[in-house]
Structures are given as structure tokens and as C-alpha cells.
């Protein structure tokens, strides 16, 4: 079974999801994990699907990209199943005046501590820059990581908070 990583990005308009999903369905590509959102007027999709060969999907998506409004890439990836959590889940929030290197500095602190970013989004609105990330931290390391994040944030002049990601089991 082929597993494919597909990205599509283009100026937002109604019907992008329907157009792309229709192409995939016609080819028998099963859309598994995906994330789609609008970023500053561009609609961006990142999809994993299983089924056809990468070349077939690329060819089928080509007409959509032909008008120059959409950019699509297709790549075969190695199916390696689910990734097990590597630590304790936390939510990191950073907000402050926009400047270069906020994501780089804060994620470097996480990486140096053996933390893994599993989800991250940023928003720039006016001069306010907001980063919210879901991270897995090595067990017992959160207090020390929080201290390092606070120092890194002070250097950048931004605020930071690190809280346990609470999961309700019902």
C-alpha cells in the first residue's frame, strides 16, 4: 500500500477542498490524516493518504495547479504507523511583540531538553505575535524547561506560559 504526503496551497477560494478531495476519491486514494486551514488569505492543506502511486496523484492534480492558483506536491513516504508519545503533554503559549526568531528560540529550548513539538500554530495580528504549541516533554522535566523558556522569553521580550495539556477521559 502506498502512503503519500501531499501539500496543496493557494489563494483561498470556495471549492479547493472539494476539488482536491474529488481528485483523490476518483483515484481511490483514502484520505487519512489531514490538516487544512487559511493562513493570511492562502488556503493550505497537508494530507496523508493511502492508495495510488504518487505519479498518478501528481498527474491528476496537475489540472488544478495549471491555472497557477494552486501549488500541489506529492511524495511517497514510508508508512511507519503511529508515533508513540515520548513524554508528558504540555501546551506552550508565547505572545508578544513580533520579532525575528521567536519560534526558533523557543523550540530550541524544547529540543535541547528532549521535548517534541507535536502541533504548532502561529498568528501575527498587528504587532502581536502568538505561538501556541503542543509539546511532549521528558517525564519530570517540565519545571526545568519552564525556567529555561522563561529566560529565553525574557531575552526576546515576550511572555510565555507552559501548562499541562489536560485530557478529560470520560
Amino acid at each position, binding site marked *: 500500500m502506498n502512503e503519500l504526503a501531499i501539500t496543496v496551497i493557494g489563494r483561498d477560494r470556495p471549492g479547493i477542498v472539494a476539488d482536491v478531495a474529488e481528485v483523490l476519491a476518483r483515484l481511490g486514494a483514502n484520505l487519512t490524516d489531514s490538516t487544512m*486551514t487559511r493562513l493570511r488569505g492562502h488556503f493550505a492543506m497537508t494530507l496523508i493518504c493511502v492508495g495510488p502511486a504518487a505519479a498518478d496523484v501528481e498527474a491528476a492534480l496537475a489540472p488544478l495547479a495549471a491555472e497557477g492558483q494552486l501549488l500541489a506536491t506529492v511524495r511517497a513516504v514510508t508508512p511507519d504507523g503511529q508515533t508513540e508519545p515520548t513524554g508528558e503533554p504540555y*501546551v506552550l*503559549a508565547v*505572545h*508578544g*511583540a*513580533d520579532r525575528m526568531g521567536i519560534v526558533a528560540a523557543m523550540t530550541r529550548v524544547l529540543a535541547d531538553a528532549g521535548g517534541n513539538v507535536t*502541533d*504548532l*500554530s502561529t*498568528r501575527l*495580528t*498587528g*504587532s*502581536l*505575535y*502568538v505561538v*501556541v*504549541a*503542543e509539546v511532549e516533554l521528558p517525564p519530570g522535566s517540565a519545571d526545568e524547561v519552564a525556567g529555561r523558556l522563561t529566560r529565553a522569553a525574557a531575552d526576546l*521580550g*515576550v*511572555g510565555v*506560559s507552559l*501548562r499541562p*495539556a*489536560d485530557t478529560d477521559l470520560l
Partner: protein
Amino acid sequence: MTAEEYAGLGGWTPEKLGLPGEVRAVVAAPDPVLSRPGPAVDPTSAEVVQLAADLVATMRVSPGCVGLAAPQVGVSAQVFAVDVTGHPKAVTVHGAFVLCNATVVEASRWKAGREGCMSVPDLTGDVKRASRLVVEGVLPGSGDPVRLVTDGFEARALQHEIDHCAGLLFLDRVAGAHAVYQRKVYL
């Protein structure tokens, strides 16, 4: 003060401050005053009484505003105004009031809800808050202690404002990486 009065606001209104409030400019993130924990205040000082009146006045001229904390008008201090009167989501309503040095003493029935903030005008976020809440604080002017028992939307508003006084924005409490949204509707 009787136990009964301590259970609520004891008939306190912003008019009891005895002076007109002035509308102050509302500051927006990333202003660092919003990220700084505010100190406790002397509720009987002239400065705090004026601040309380100004918070009410500023809240009243701001469409859709149900609460305003001192850091939002550029003052790092534990003072905030709340008024959820007439809000469709409010159940228990205590009218317009100002609290100083308020703390949450009991919180339960946590529920997620979408929040916005005058100081973060372009974003909203999903935040979990207690929908049953007991808050203790003191009134500006008299300095009388109060214990507010509330729920639902008023409870959410109180937690949002107490967070402001502690230097926290709703952005610090959003549920996850995809729980912050570009705001689409302006009041």
C-alpha cells in the same frame, strides 16, 4: 458587616465611589503591562477609587465589554470592573461592580468556551473555565470584603479579569495549537 452582606455585594454600586469616572485608553497586546502581574492595592486610597470609577466609565463606553481590568488601561494593579447585565449568556448577574485584590477560592464544573478580549482585538480562543465560582475580594472606597458566588458567563468574566490582574491573557490558557482563531465578527 453581617454574614449575609459578606455573601454578596451588599448593595454596592459604582455610584458609591462618589466621583465621575473618566474614559481611559485601552491598551492592546503586545503591551508588556498586560503580561505583568499587578500588585495588591489599598482599596481606600484616592488613586484606587479614581481607577475604579475610570474602569467602569471605560467599560460602559466600550460596546460589548463585560469586564475591564486595570492592566488594560495601562495600570499594573489588582483592580477590575465587571458588568454582565443583560448579556444573553449570563445566568447569575450581580450588576456592575469593581473588585480589588480578588482571588478565586472555589472553582468547579469546568467548561470550554470561546473568549475574546478588548486587548487582543483580532483573535479569539477556546478556554476552559470554571462555571461555578466563588471569589473573594474587597470593594474600592469602603474596603469592605465581599464573597461572590456565581456561575456561567459571570464566572467566566471574573476569571478572565482576575487573570488580567495576574498578568495573564486568554492566550495563556487556550486549549491547544488549533484553539486560537482570527476574529471574524466585530461588535
